[in-house]
């Protein structure tokens, strides 16, 4: 590894952002025809597509849960999504990300309504740049709403990193790679309020106080993302209303 570069220069981050500033985000709901619900999302240079199929029949039978729906989540990176081509297929990192993401969603989907069925969530990373798992979870959340899946609320996800001793929101690749800690979060948000933590991991080392700060920072980012997720859904469903009003 080359000499670690300075990540904070004159109080600003490498890409000029403030410590508590998100990367630019673009969200579009309902972008695929075959899927029951879908979402295209960009977070900085991350470009991801999420699709939801279900509830639908689950085969083989022995995987079925007689009392509730099974949730399946598959995080997958396209071979061209990273600088050094990634061999297609799940690797250990993708499997771990899929597991914790699935668990976040399981905690908020009202599964008891659909015994013996499965709700399948597939997210493809077309281009990755740190925080792809958070981008994917944000997209999956919108796709689930678009599919009409009943949930307690909406999941919004963002990571916090510690770089050069400073906590920053929504790290880019260099901050993630050279930083002292990377902490992805996802929160359940209900009625415009953050209710609880649905996903939490940490890679690195921090103090207890820094962790408290990180949570505050992440919550701020998550609320901003939640607003954008809402806008994306409203945009898709309101657009029909507007077209009609304009046509008259």
């Amino acid at each position, binding site marked *: 590894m080359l000499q670690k570069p300075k990540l904070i220069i004159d109080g600003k981050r490498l890409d000029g952002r403030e410590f508590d500033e998100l990367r630019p985000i673009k969200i579009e709901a309902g972008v*695929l025809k075959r899927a029951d619900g879908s979402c295209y999302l960009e977070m900085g*240079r991350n470009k991801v597509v999420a699709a939801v199929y279900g509830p639908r029949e689950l085969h083989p039978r022995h995987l079925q849960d007689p009392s509730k729906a099974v949730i399946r989540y598959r995080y997958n990176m396209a071979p061209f999504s990273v600088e050094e081509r990634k061999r297609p297929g799940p690797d250990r990192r993708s499997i771990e990300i899929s597991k914790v993401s699935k668990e976040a969603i399981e905690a908020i989907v009202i599964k008891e309504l659909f015994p013996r069925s499965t709700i399948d969530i597939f997210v493809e990373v077309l281009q990755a740049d740190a925080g792809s798992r958070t981008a994917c979870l944000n997209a999956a959340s919108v796709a689930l709403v678009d599919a009409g899946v009943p949930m307690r609320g909406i999941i919004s996800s963002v990571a916090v990193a510690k770089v050069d001793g400073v906590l920053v929101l929504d790290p880019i690749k260099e901050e993630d790679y050279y930083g002292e800690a990377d902490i992805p979060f996802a929160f359940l948000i209900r009625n415009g309020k953050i209710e609880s933590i649905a996903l939490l991991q940490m890679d690195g080392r921090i103090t207890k106080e820094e962790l408290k700060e990180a949570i505050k920072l992440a919550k701020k980012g998550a609320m901003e993302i939640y607003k954008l997720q809402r806008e994306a859904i409203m945009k898709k469903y309101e657009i029909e209303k507007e077209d009609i009003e304009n046509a008259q």
Partner: protein
Amino acid sequence: MHSDILVDIKKDYVLSKLRDNERIDGRAFDEFRKIEIYPNIIQKAEGSALVKIGDTQVVVGIKMQPGEPFPDTPDKGIIITNAELVPLASPTFEPGPPDENAIELARVVDRGIRHSEAVDLSELCIEEGKKVWILFIDIHALDDDGNLMDASALAAIVALMNTVVPAERFELGNDFKLPIKDIPISVTSLVVEDKFLVDPSRDELSVGDNTITITTDKNDNIVAIQKSGSYLLSEELFEEIVETSIKKAKEIRKLVTS
């Protein structure tokens, strides 16, 4: 595993319209759906493109890295084509390694590019016998509304056309634009009874997955053929299909070069 009832219910409708010499979406028998081409959408890749044909969507990304040449072609670069028919794209796709459909798709797209010599492999030699450029064409399906083949082949050639060889990253000189010598275009048709429908939609394919793909180069040479599906094809129908495919490929090539 899963069949899709939404597609199955269309079968009778497709056939009854066919008897009146019509298609369910009103297209002519030799008409493609609306084609949208978005080059260079994945900046991190060496080249890329998103192609939409109707509601079918495919992304192709090109990645390059130096590697060892094959022993029998020490001065030629290597092209490797792979297709991922990810479960996101259709209720009938399952996760896992490429199945026979994904493999067939990748190999047909590959043959079109290889035999049209769109990429001159001798220009990808770095050090004869030791180092050449390996070029990966990765096809990633996003939405299967029929004819992933043509969407993939089109996205592949457009991606190649905006590919920049990343020599600087590997300290092998300056980056340079990948020289492209030809533009292969594939045209796939659904064969039903004694008729053929160009660019079949998923609903039309409900009558049977019986297709034939013809890929041509800019001089109207045929550089790939693939008959796919358990059906019997008459010679006369085949000749008609070849004529039509050459004609349609020309039109699509114009779209690409404009």
